[in-house]
């Protein structure tokens, strides 16, 4: 199967407000002609408002954390319980409880946190799409103080999107097909 070529426009703006205008204009354009596949915003700091303009992100990281922590608790408890049981078969402990619960709690606590942290990191990598290669059109200005707007668009209609970007005061526009 032949992979469809993707066409990207990347505009750099020096203000978050401008970027916000661009996105709304592009959305208007999309409503009219249905040409835009995806819009992505690049920023040097976090802007929680982007959810209002780009739509909400579905990133259930906390679910990973929750189940990771539960797995950790169960694993740590089972490890200690199994080790204690195994020790009893080779080494009598003089009438002490086979599975020492107060000690188990300590290890379970640590196991919960350890697995919780690991699974959160895994979820972070999954939902942020990292690690990945840098895109060709990525501008270093974005890590400094400017906002980047990436538009994935039908190559034939890219002129219109370009016009929108320019109209809103793009400092620089890069165009890449891959």
């Amino acid at each position: 199967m032949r992979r469809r070529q993707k066409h990207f426009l990347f505009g750099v703006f020096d203000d978050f407000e401008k970027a916000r205008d661009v996105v709304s204009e592009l959305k208007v354009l999309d409503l009219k002609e249905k040409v835009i596949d995806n819009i992505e915003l690049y920023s040097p700091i976090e802007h929680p408002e982007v959810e209002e303009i780009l739509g909400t992100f579905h990133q259930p990281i906390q679910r990973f954390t929750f189940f990771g922590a539960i797995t950790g608790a169960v694993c740590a408890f089972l490890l200690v319980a199994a080790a204690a049981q195994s020790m009893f078969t080779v080494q009598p402990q003089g009438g002490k409880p086979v599975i020492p619960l107060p000690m188990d709690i300590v290890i379970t606590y640590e196991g919960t946190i350890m697995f919780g942290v690991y699974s959160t990191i895994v979820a972070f990598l999954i939902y942020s799409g990292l690690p990945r290669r840098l895109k060709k059109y990525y501008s270093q200005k974005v890590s400094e103080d400017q906002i980047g707007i990436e538009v994935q668009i039908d190559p034939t209609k890219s002129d219109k999107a370009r016009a929108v970007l320019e109209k809103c005061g793009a400092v620089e526009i890069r165009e890449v097909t891959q």
Partner: protein
Amino acid sequence: MSDYSMKDIEWAKINRDVLASLESPRKEFWIVLSVCIFLVLCGAAAEVYQYNEGLGTALMNKPHFWQLYISNFVFWIGMSHSGTLLSAILLLTHADWRKPIYRFAEAMTLFSILTAAIFPVIHLGRVWDMYWVLPYPNERGIWPNFRSPLLWDAAAITTYATSSILFLYVGMIPDLAICRDNAKGWRKKLYTALSIGWMGRASEWMAFRKTYVLLACFLVPLAVSVHSIVASDFAMSIMPDWHITSFPPYFVAGALYSGCAAIITLFVLLRYVFKFEDYMTTEIMDKTAKLTFAIAMVWNYLNLSEYASIWYSNDMFEKEVLLEKFFGPYHWVVWGMLLCALVAPFAMAFEKVRHNMWAMFWLSLVLQLGMWLERFQIVSPPLASNHEPWTWAVVWPGLIQLTITVASFGWFTMLFLIFCKVFPSVSMYEVKEMVFHRRKASSRTDMEDLDKVKDDMIKAEEGLS
């Protein structure tokens, strides 16, 4: 309203200032670094000698089975506490003055753990069999004994070390991307690998913020548990003056205390060396000092209540140890600790002291000395006057132990120096966020808008809406 008086800084300047701290180390840097490496080599030589000859060369004996290695271990673990714990607590409470100082504090955490982790290894009689402490399946069917607090230590420290590394690393990814965009040569390769392709996309930022807050939620209880478990090494034994119920909170308070003091020390040094006056302002120092003062008072309370409870319990053994502490051969350690860690912090009650960087620097060193003496007086005097009067003996740590102790400071400084030159010690993106929200706040004047800005800031930090 936030009351820090940070100037409105251009974002590009933030990048320039912080990245400048990575470049071209001065001559002084190499001198200090080589002194540290020399100290580490001395420590390594001492350890090799001790390894070959036996632990007796360190002048430990019966009843002083534990000595400086353990007190150093507790000291370094304690120092590791404030970094991650304070960073996480301040993150969760939206205290934005944390932003310029948390990076180096977290690095300090990491390196103190790496220093602390050396001590149990050095301390063991048979280092070469250390892996027996790990729970791995083996043909003998023997497992480690999870009843032992030392195993809890191992579990807690492994968890804490890995989680702290991840917390530090995740918080640093956006900054590593900035470094990547401005670096050349081997640094470019290093930062490209470490920044794992961070481009600041909106989806990345959303996932990042959520992850960061979730990690902080884990790290707060974790850090508290780690030092409680270290305290259990003592509290779970039956030794008089070790077997104390209030030890876990006492240790946690002491850990935060010495850690805060260490943050102040490094704060002043970094501010001076890298000229970070714009970011590490007097107001931030003021807040850190107030926090340290509050923690010092908690520690004081727990310390004095421990003495009181021993005194009023009238337990023969514990009272003996207490009296020996104050009037016995180790009395100057105890009085020194009380002077440095109990009396000295009251200087922070004065605003003049809190606003004077070098006064705070020397004060923080005094506090740390006090806390180091505190760890020594926890370990040694109870062993010197234990249950069995016939074995009472006073032993001072020998040359080998002192060398390794000094080497541990060299090791920590070495790691920290290398960190400062390879990774940004001030969080660039978070300082930008701070500036951004402040700029937004100052551009609007009426109170309603300010409230909205505050809400925005809170939302920005929660990221969980």
